[in-house]
């Protein structure tokens, strides 16, 4: 099964494409409140990790959205190949019994 790396595509496009003189791309993850997960909110360009965090603060937390920021250079993210969608994801479509919806939950358990 193959994987792709969207952030690295421009640099591995063959010898005919000159390397663009641009800052690398970073993916930004923000934790909205203590106790919640960091969530992917978008991407930006920056020369290094420290500048990427600064930019993320300035671009994505202007309206009090976050208490913590992660950044990761996009080229380090491996992703599933769109062409593999069938073998990867379709087999689970017919396995409805994997959803835990066939049980009666006692009322006093509350929200699960």
């Amino acid at each position, binding site marked *: 099964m193959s994987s792709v790396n969207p952030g690295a595509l421009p640099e591995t496009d063959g010898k005919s494409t000159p390397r663009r003189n641009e800052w690398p791309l970073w993916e930004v993850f923000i934790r909205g409140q203590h106790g919640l997960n960091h969530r992917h909110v978008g991407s930006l360009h920056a020369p290094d990790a420290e*500048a990427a965090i600064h930019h993320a603060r300035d671009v994505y937390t202007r309206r009090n959205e976050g208490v913590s920021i992660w950044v990761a250079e996009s080229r380090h993210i491996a992703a599933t190949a769109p062409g593999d969608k069938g073998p990867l994801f379709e087999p689970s479509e017919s396995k409805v019994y994997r959803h835990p919806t066939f049980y009666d939950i006692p009322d006093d358990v509350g929200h699960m």
Partner: protein
Amino acid sequence: MAGNDKDALLNFLLRMGDSALILGHRVSEWCGHSPVLEEDIALANTALDLIGQTQLWLEYAAEIQGEGNSADDLAFLRDAWDFRNFLLAELPNGDFGRTMMRQFLFDAWASILLPRLAQSSDPRVAEIAAKAAKEAAYHLERSADTVVGLGDGTAESHDRMQAALDYLYPYVGEMFLSDEGDAALAAAGVAPDPASLRNEYDALLKRVMNEATLELPDTRFTHSGGRDGRMHTEHLGHLLCSMQWLQRAYPGSTW
């Protein structure tokens, strides 16, 4: 409050508010023009922080003045000779490098002064400074990193940053001048004597310029005339023309 003390406090508040206002307006001129999107929004944030600080300083200044003015009246209805901002704040942006160098020279001063002001014997000054100090600490981190990045960058960026430093450095000294009013405020514990901040400022500048491979000019000459309103540069009038235009053309208009 005795007359002299009141004048000293009013002058101090106008210097703080006007410097933040004029620099904030200058920085806002980059909106939509910055070299990259991320810097554009970061500069807009800085400008908004400064204008937010302006509102607090000038609101208090208007109260001390006691002539029924609002912060907006002070910002939009005074002419150049009434402004008390440092000349550094009103200088034109130049290229992005010069703008960031000017920002660093100002942020370094603010980041040293504001935490001290947060201990002011005047509770209102202390409150405003405590809020502004956090913003200034972030501004300094960003502008210092940019000065180092561009100073220790390519040959061209290095030369531009050195030219920016050479151009702006003769305006630095005005931030550390003091007069009788400053002495009175220092004695009353309202604000530190500006001159007493210089050593710490010099040490910070030396450290950052060293890292940025830039050379500090070997002169203590300083332009002055902004903080006492004696003589602003020709640039302030042009800035006010665009900043005050709407309020002058349509008096009292709101949105």
